[in-house]
């Protein structure tokens, strides 16, 4: 089972990102579970959502406390207490940032890949919503799920020009990161069920 935590701010499409991840797993005949950690939602407030992907039915419904991956939609959240909590020692971080991966990796002492997702989204969608670009990068880096599945689930969630621009965005975002460099982390734990 792969556990992922998505951190963002209200209005950045945090819950949608988590749902899209689980939907993509479902597209590939795997089991997916996604749920938000609701707080007092308002624009700009730190929010998080949880995702599990497994090859067996997922029974547990507790929060993801020890994620293998963090997807962070705002680099400032890296300094917010609790955001990095529980990340597995070999865990990876994907962050929407204008800073380079190496600068962030040095600062945090962890495996970090950065992507200027908001800037890319601003350019292609006209709005700085980083979620779909980050997902495309995450799928490419981890190889957990295919970009085709992401495109498929996007077409279930969006229509018309919004969909077309998002499809363009994920294609572009995927080119910005190396493929399959995070593949080792996704090995399934040896448990009989999730």
């Amino acid at each position, binding site marked *: 089972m792969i556990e992922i935590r998505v951190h963002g701010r209200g209005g950045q499409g945090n819950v949608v990102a988590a*749902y899209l991840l*689980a939907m993509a797993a479902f597209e590939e005949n795997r089991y*997916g579970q996604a749920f938000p950690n*609701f707080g007092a939602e308002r624009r700009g407030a730190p929010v998080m959502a949880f995702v599990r992907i497994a090859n067996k039915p997922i029974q*547990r*419904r507790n929060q993801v406390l020890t994620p293998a991956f963090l997807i962070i939609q705002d680099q400032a959240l890296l300094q917010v207490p609790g955001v990095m909590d529980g990340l597995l020692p070999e865990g990876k971080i994907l962050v929407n940032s204008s800073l380079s991966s190496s600068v962030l990796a040095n600062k945090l002492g962890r495996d970090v890949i950065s992507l200027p997702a908001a800037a890319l989204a601003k350019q292609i969608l006209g709005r700085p919503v980083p979620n779909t670009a980050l997902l495309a990068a995450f799928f490419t880096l981890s190889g957990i799920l295919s970009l085709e599945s992401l495109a498929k*689930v996007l077409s279930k969630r969006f229509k018309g020009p919004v969909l077309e621009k998002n499809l363009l965005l994920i294609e572009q975002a995927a080119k910005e990161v190396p493929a399959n460099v995070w593949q080792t982390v996704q090995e399934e734990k040896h448990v*009989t069920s999730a």
Partner: protein
Amino acid sequence: MLQALEGSQAVAQAVALCRPQVIAAYPITPQTHIVENISKLVADGQLHCEFVSVESEFSAASVVLGAALAGSRAYTATSSQGIILMAEVLFNISGMRVPIVMTCANRAISSPLSIWNDQQDSMSVRDAGWIQLYCADNQEAVDSTIQAYRIAERTELPVMVCMDGFTLTHTLEGIDIPTQKQVDKYLPPYQFSRTLDPRHPITLGTLVSPDFYTEARHSHHQALLNAQAEIVAADQEWFTLSGRRSGGLLTVEGPEQAKVAILSIGSVIGTLRSALEEIPPAQPVKLIKLRSFRPFPADMLRAACQNLDDVIVLERALSPGSGGIVGVEVLSALAELPNPPRVHSFAAGLGGRDIPLEILPRLLKVLSEPTDHRFRLIDLELEKLPIEDR
């Protein structure tokens, strides 16, 4: 068809498949997006029914009461403060023995204000005379919603389908949505036996003198007890049609020889299942999933527990000044056994506190402690309280 859906979306689809004719709901917090999704189906012309947005949950319950009495299949949903505001009408609905289905997206009650999950809301109206079914996952929420109409219409009792707020309602997962054909076969058109008709006037919910009130209450009580058979039959019949069960009155999982059982209710069951695999306990442990809280399946519970040494009850509600609500009922039912197991009563996860897998060893720790029936909030963090409140 298997689809990746949020629990609320899935329940909205399940409700639509039941062909309700009147839906009334208060559209604002603490409402969930179940009715929002249903209102979309109505607005898009996919569901032909009267959708009444009302100004309060009291009105929502009143509208579905009237609609059902006028012969409609009716539905409403609420949670938290909403169900408390409905309370008066809930008693009226059940007292008049009107078949209505309602989803309660279980959430905490204020104050202090909390929007998060626990089961205090539906537990607070456990005595309202409704059938209460608790769902362990979203598939059960979908299937139980459909079963609820059949149970309600056959017993002439209202049914509350309780699903954990957020933990289920806002969780996206793979959910099998049955076909219209399956549901139509399971739920034929229904005619309420006491549909109001001006040509044949009857009185319902009238003043009853002390000469007959006790008998009316007895008959209501008996109807709920008798509903047990209908709940089991509804689940069995649905299994024949869909290949899925929701767990009848209660289900027992785990090793036959186990002398210890954990009994719980709602979505924490899944977390306990994972915990039993990932943190294997020293001795075999059974899991008892209580689905029907009203009627309370005392006989079936006794049969399930007769050879046990310990039953650990974990629930998500609290009766201040007493303790566990489910815990007391379990203790009372098992007391009739010749060698009753020890019952340990715990609550956790109040107001949305996460229940992690580590809850399992904490629950089982009670077995090595001296016998102690005192109720405890097992995830209480005492250091957060001033000394005098500990």
